[in-house]
């Protein structure tokens, strides 16, 4: 296992055996790292390690640290609890009815994880000791970059050009432009007018006839018709008038509704 390679990892300073219990937990990268370090001190192959002894060492370590009233990160306590459980599983023979994993299985799992972590560390170390680019191996020091001469082809259509021109000329015109005021009949106005015109007439008279006076102005025709029609529907709903149309697109006849009103 001893290799000539330098160990790339700054392994925590190995304290003398009797000092082991006083190592600060801060030096470790988590509980697995601590376990691995403790295991290494047993100076045997991880495959031959006593997981029970390792668990006891870990628990003792955590105990000492806590006695010294040093805060221990939760990770370490979770591992401690798990190891306590592992210990109990290892020491108490498994009942046949017990379908929890056996102590041996749990121990094997932990051993596997330790071996895997150690393997990954060794792999990292081997990677870093390879002839790396920029350290032992070099790329061309004076690369000759590919020169790209980029020329732009501009896109514009005659339409774009004319629009741009017209837009500017219009922008330049002094803005005494005022929007055309459109007369709009509000629904309320239309309703008032309609009520007034229909009055008490019980005869069917076409709506356009009622509105003839107003419809004379072409620019207002549409709004008058639309608003009046909408208002007439409201009046029908309120039971004030009746509406009738005898054919599609035919004239709309209106009259005051007869009935209980009087």
């Amino acid at each position, binding site marked *: 296992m001893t290799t000539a390679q330098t160990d*790339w*990892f*700054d392994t925590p300073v190995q304290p003398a055996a009797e000092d082991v219990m006083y190592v600060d937990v801060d030096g470790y*990268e*988590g*509980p*697995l*790292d601590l376990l691995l370090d403790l295991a290494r001190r047993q100076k045997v192959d991880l495959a031959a390690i006593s997981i029970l002894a390792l668990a006891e060492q870990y628990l003792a370590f955590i105990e000492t640290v806590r006695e010294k009233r040093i805060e221990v990160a939760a*990770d370490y306590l979770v*591992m401690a609890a798990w190891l306590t459980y592992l210990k109990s599983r290892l020491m108490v023979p498994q009942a046949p009815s017990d379908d929890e994993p056996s102590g041996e299985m749990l121990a*094997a*799992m932990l051993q*596997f*994880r330790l*071996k*895997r*972590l150690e*393997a*990954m*560390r*060794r*792999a*990292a170390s*081997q*990677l*870093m000791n*390879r*002839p*790396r*680019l*920029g*350290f*032992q*191996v*070099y*790329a*061309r020091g004076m*690369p*000759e*970059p*590919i020169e790209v001469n980029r020329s732009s082809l501009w896109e514009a259509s005659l339409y774009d050009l004319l629009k741009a021109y017209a837009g500017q000329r219009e922008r330049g015109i002094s803005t005494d432009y005022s929007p055309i005021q459109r007369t709009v009949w509000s629904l309320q106005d239309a309703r008032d007018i309609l009520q007034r015109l229909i009055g008490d007439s019980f005869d069917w008279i076409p709506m356009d006839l009622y509105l003839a006076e107003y419809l004379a102005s072409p620019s207002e025709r549409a709004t008058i018709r639309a608003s009046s029609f909408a208002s007439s529907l409201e009046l029908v709903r309120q039971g004030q008038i009746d509406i009738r149309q005898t054919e599609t697109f035919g004239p709309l006849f209106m009259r005051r509704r007869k009935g209980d009103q009087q």
Partner: protein
Amino acid sequence: MTDRDEHGEVAERHLRILEALLFASSEPLSANQLLTYLGEGVRVGDLLATLQQRYADRGVNLVQRGDKWAFRTAEDLGFLLRREEQETRPLSRAALETLSIIAYHQPSTRAEIEEVRGVATGKGTIDLLMEAGWIRMRGRRRTPGRPVTYGTTEAFLDHFGLESLSDLPGLDELKGSGLLSGRLPPDMQIPLPFDGALRDDEDPLEPDDLGTDEDQD
């Protein structure tokens, strides 16, 4: 005979073009990139093999990195060329471990890295390796939370002088001992580092995916 001469002349010209292009670039170039300078139907692979052989004993070698090629100084001259410069910032132990776990287990998620290390991985560690250009986000694992999967890059191969992931040191031994598996070895199938496009259980990253794990900050 004139025919063969002519053929040799054309090949020689192609080899010169490859030399020029590969010498000029400090980054590895793919056969396809090179092909655009040679013309349709030229067998770049054969030319590259010839060139590699020609330079095999020289002070500068033609090396393959993933599916790309580059000229690099010969490994055995490293001791001579070694410059005084130190690594600007040596990688932390956490970063190194994370890198090797990703390299040997890829595609791997953050949770898997943490499982191997037995400790939470700071976001900074992954970021640092991404910034170094050695790892990349590959996709998302098709499991709850859809965690991001990480893999190594071509720059990783280039930096560590590997032709492909199968050159990772000690890979066979690790494979044999079942240490690349997530679980206890015996009857388990042992996965190999995978740098293909996407594995069955991986989804591609969306273009706007920033790689934030849904269940993590």
